[in-house]
């Protein structure tokens, strides 16, 4: 276990090297770039597997840590470190495995793009950053990788930078996540200040190991120190995992290529927030217990629950296939956060894993659909793809069922666990969650029928099935979407977190199945029975709900709200200060300059004109005249001079004599 942790740094390092090499490759070295990227990902996947197997052997949660010094300052030193424990191993394995298959799909998806090499370079950079985040034992290193992941999402969203919408989307994504990161940063500062170190586990005096002590201290707003730090960290998580206030960037992130959406906005990056909360779980729960949990836990619970419901409602009203999936991701993340907030570390993490697989499956599926329909993204212009793209259809179906929570599939087990835990915590949250689950089932079936059922509503040329490198990954993922569910129980044991027995298990399970079935039934009723005839036909739901539907479609006008308030405010502030600088400060300066100039003029006019010039010139004139007079004396006659000389001598002698 200990020597394994020493190789942990290799996992993120390989993709990093690959990214560096690829960045130097010329544009036309397409095959080589893809090759390097895939081999690197494969290698780190093998390493992750080795690490995972390493952790399997031990029965209770074994943890190995390896810290190294980054640099010294003052009298202390700043350390970074790597960790190997069940959660990391699982996560790393999931990221590498899913990532690998997404890369395979990407080779197909991006085959006709001229910036192919640069795309794969960014992908491997992203992989490196994500893996770095996962294996980090130090909060600072985690934060650094966190920001790098944000950078990669920025670069990948804006991959097709010539599209203005992509340009604004990439900027928006980065800035929103950055706002979250500020919270995270403050949390780190607080932690480093209070705990003295940023290492999570450092043989006893790591930050998490001091959670108890931190709980005792006083933080902001009356919370304990641990809670304040947890809240700050959760803000970062909200930004990254697109929780309610900072979720606006996720739908716009769909501007990027679909594999990107799959990798970043489904499986890995957005999950980072949840993973981070899971990693810092000790901090969140410090100071509180199951009965009266800390404020942080409550916050996580309610934010998660609300996000789940909120985005589920929006997902229902979306026409773009990717946006619908984006909102579903949002709501699923809400579920995970809710689970964690309710105290269920294992359900949250398990749901994270399963969701990664089937959401990646769904996104890749939508990618195949888009390629198949020659870059058509609007569901209203699709339809009847079952005939044209059978493989994609079946894989997509498995993904949909898993997501909807139909029993045999992975989704059911993980979601059930989540609902169970929420049930324990608070009935209200559980109720909302089950309604959100119902909505999930509904919009997924809506999507299935709009896309695959009915007849082709798109343009003139028929859709076609995608090549092998596109459908193979979704096939593999669909297998996992099915199989993974069964490992639920063992995961709990694997993580070494022993949950006490939960009551009301059968009620919750039954209700969730019922709700899932009801959603599917309603979806079939609305969309399955009478599929839309042509693209322009209004959405049946729209007919039903009318104004509410448009409101859903427009994402509850959150973007517009933000634009109107925050963004305009900052722009105005900027304008104010720019004008302030130009007018006020420069005004003062110019004022001083003008007064100085004025004074100089006065002095010049008064002082020079009269006093000096007048007096001086007169003096000069006088001197010149007397000079002319004396000149006459110089007659040129030598004797004249001699006479004057003698006259002088005589006078002198007389004077001397008289004295």
């Amino acid at each position, binding site marked *: 276990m200990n020597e394994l942790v020493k190789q942990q740094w290799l996992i993120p390092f390989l993709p990093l090297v690959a990214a560096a090499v690829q960045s130097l490759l010329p544009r036309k070295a397409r095959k080589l770039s893809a090759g390097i990227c895939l081999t690197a990902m494969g290698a780190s996947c093998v390493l992750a597997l080795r690490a995972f197997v390493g952790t399997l052997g031990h029965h209770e949660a074994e943890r190995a840590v390896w810290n190294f010094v980054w640099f010294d300052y003052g009298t202390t030193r700043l350390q970074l470190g790597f960790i190997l424990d069940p959660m990391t191993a699982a996560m790393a394995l999931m990221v590498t495995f899913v990532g690998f298959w997404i890369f395979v799909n990407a080779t197909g998806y991006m085959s006709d793009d001229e910036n192919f090499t640069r795309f794969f370079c960014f992908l491997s950079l992203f992989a490196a950053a994500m893996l770095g985040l996962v294996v980090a034992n130090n909060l600072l290193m985690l934060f650094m990788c966190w920001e790098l992941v944000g950078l990669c999402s920025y670069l990948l969203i804006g991959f097709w930078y010539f599209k203005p919408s992509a340009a604004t989307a990439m900027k928006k994504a980065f800035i929103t996540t950055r706002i979250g990161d500020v919270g995270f940063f403050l949390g780190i500062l607080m932690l480093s200040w209070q705990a003295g170190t940023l290492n999570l586990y450092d043989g006893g005096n790591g930050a998490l190991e001091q959670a108890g002590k931190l709980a005792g201290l006083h933080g902001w707003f009356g919370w304990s120190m641990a809670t304040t730090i947890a809240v700050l960290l959760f803000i970062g998580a909200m930004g990254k995992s697109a929780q309610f206030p900072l979720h606006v960037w996720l739908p716009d992130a769909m501007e990027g290529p679909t594999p990107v959406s799959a990798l970043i906005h489904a499986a890995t990056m957005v999950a980072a927030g949840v993973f981070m909360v899971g990693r810092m779980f000790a901090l969140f729960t410090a100071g509180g217990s199951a009965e009266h949990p800390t404020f942080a836990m409550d916050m996580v619970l309610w934010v998660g629950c609300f996000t789940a419901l909120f985005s589920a409602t929006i997902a229902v009203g979306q026409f773009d296939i990717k946006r619908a999936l984006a909102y579903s991701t949002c709501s699923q993340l809400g579920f995970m956060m809710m689970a964690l907030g309710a105290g269920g570390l294992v359900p949250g993490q398990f749901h994270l894993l399963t969701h990664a697989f089937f959401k990646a499956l769904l996104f890749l599926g939508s990618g195949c659909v888009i390629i198949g329909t020659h870059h058509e993204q609007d569901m209203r212009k699709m339809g009847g793809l079952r005939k044209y793209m059978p493989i994609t259809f079946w894989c997509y179906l498995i993904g949909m069922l898993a997501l909807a929570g139909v029993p045999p599939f992975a989704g059911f087990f993980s979601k059930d666990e989540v609902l169970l835990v929420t049930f324990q915590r608070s009935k209200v949250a559980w109720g909302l969650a089950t309604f959100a689950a119902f909505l999930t089932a509904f919009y997924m079936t809506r999507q299935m029928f709009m896309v695959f059922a009915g007849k082709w509503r798109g343009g003139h040329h028929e859709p076609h099935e995608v090549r092998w490198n596109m459908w193979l990954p979704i096939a593999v993922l669909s297998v996992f979407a099915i199989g993974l569910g069964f490992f639920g129980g063992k995961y709990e044991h694997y993580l070494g977190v022993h949950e006490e027995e939960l009551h009301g298990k059968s009620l919750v399970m039954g209700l969730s199945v019922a709700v899932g079935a009801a959603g599917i039934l309603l979806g079939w009723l609305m969309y399955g029975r009478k599929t839309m005839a042509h693209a322009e036909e209004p959405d049946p739901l729209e007919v039903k709900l009318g104004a509410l539907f448009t409101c859903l479609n427009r994402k509850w006008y959150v973007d517009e709200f933000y634009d109107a308030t925050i963004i305009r405010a900052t722009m105005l502030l900027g304008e104010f200060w720019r004008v302030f600088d130009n007018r006020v400060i420069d005004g003062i300066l110019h004022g001083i300059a003008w007064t100085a100039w004025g004074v100089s003029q006065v002095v010049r006019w008064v002082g020079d004109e009269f006093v000096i010039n007048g007096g001086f010139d007169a003096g000069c004139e006088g001197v010149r005249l007397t000079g002319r007079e004396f000149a*006459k*004396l*110089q*007659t*040129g*006659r*030598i*004797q004249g001079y*001699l006479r004057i000389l*003698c006259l002088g001598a005589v006078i002198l002698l007389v004077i001397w004599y008289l004295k």
Partner: protein
Amino acid sequence: MSVPLGYYLMLGGVLFCIGLCGALTRKNAIAVLMSIEIMFNAAILNFVVFWYYLHNGALTGQMFALFAIAVAAAESAVGLALVISVYRHYRSVDVDEMKALKG
């Protein structure tokens, strides 16, 4: 041998004034130079007189006179040369005509 010093000094002074008077009144440049020579000799006479009466052993007075004579000779030589060259230019040695350096 007992001529008092005063007589010699007066003699020197008178001679000097005669020379001065000549220098002032004569129109001819060479005459002026001659009167200057007289003034020079009056001065040198004084040197020797002072040496003779106050010398208590030191020969400085004579040395001075000797050098003064040498200088006077050099001076007159150059003066005359100048007069000759001026004469060639002005065709006359009348002092009043040499007014070129008028102020």
